[in-house]
């Protein structure tokens, strides 16, 4: 993904005057990445599009209060993140218990050496179903880890931008991301075993 570009004063003024070409440019540049991220975060196709529509509707309402300090992409993804949280709360999606630390601890002995080494997953990583397995494993992640993983690894956003979107510190992001990747690897290992 291309780096987020700071918004110029001139472009912000055009947006605030609701100039159709300026609005069209924002939609053209950001609707698709927002949609992809919504899908990655677990929303089905119609729901993902509805979410994107909702993000742009809010963008238009709040445009006059946007000071242009953050990048437009960061702001739009931030709106989406809050909407995702609202929808998850509304549908009472319960967050899964996160037992990854215990699992990881059990992999090492007291001196920090491997007690249960990582299994050889070459077959799995070469298989055609890898994407499907990764998708299935992403769905099993706790919501906050899933958000961190999808924005960083699937959408390829930079860490500092994701911290602003999710409103977390770099340290917190590091923990979320580490747990997500560790959990996904564990999940793929289980799937890998079943493929042997």
């Amino acid at each position, binding site marked *: 993904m291309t780096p987020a570009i700071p918004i110029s004063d001139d472009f912000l003024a055009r947006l605030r005057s609701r100039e159709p070409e300026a609005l069209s440019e924002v939609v053209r540049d950001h609707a*698709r990445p927002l949609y992809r991220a919504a*899908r990655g975060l677990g929303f089905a196709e119609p729901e993902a599009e509805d979410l994107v*529509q909702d993000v742009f509707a809010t963008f238009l309402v709040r445009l006059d209060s946007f000071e242009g300090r953050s990048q437009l992409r960061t702001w739009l993804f931030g709106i989406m993140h809050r909407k995702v949280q609202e929808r998850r709360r509304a549908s009472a999606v319960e967050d899964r218990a996160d037992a990854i630390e215990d699992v990881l601890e059990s992999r090492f002995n007291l001196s920090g050496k*491997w007690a249960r080494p990582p299994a050889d997953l070459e077959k799995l990583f070469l298989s055609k179903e890898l*994407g499907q397995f990764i998708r299935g494993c992403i769905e099993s992640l706790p919501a906050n880890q899933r958000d961190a993983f999808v924005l960083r690894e699937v959408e390829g956003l930079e860490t500092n931008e994701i911290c602003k979107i999710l409103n977390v510190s770099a340290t917190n992001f590091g923990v979320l991301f580490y747990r997500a*990747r560790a959990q996904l*690897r564990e999940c793929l290992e289980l799937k890998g075993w079943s493929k042997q």
Partner: protein
Amino acid sequence: MISCKNVARLLASDQLQSEDWWIRLEVRLHLAMCGLCSRLARQLKQLRAGARNIREQNETDEGLEKRVLERLTRP
């Protein structure tokens, strides 16, 4: 000598680049000598590549931008 447990944590957190140079060096030396940690490092790279590939599966049809603009500019 840095432990496998610490190497695994550093690799999965993706924050190795922001660590001090001697820690990065220790991790590199460890990876050169430890087949199991190298395997983990390779798998995390493969996981990243696999995750980037599923991006394509999340694409939508060409009409998305048009539909968003229509609704956005509806009086």
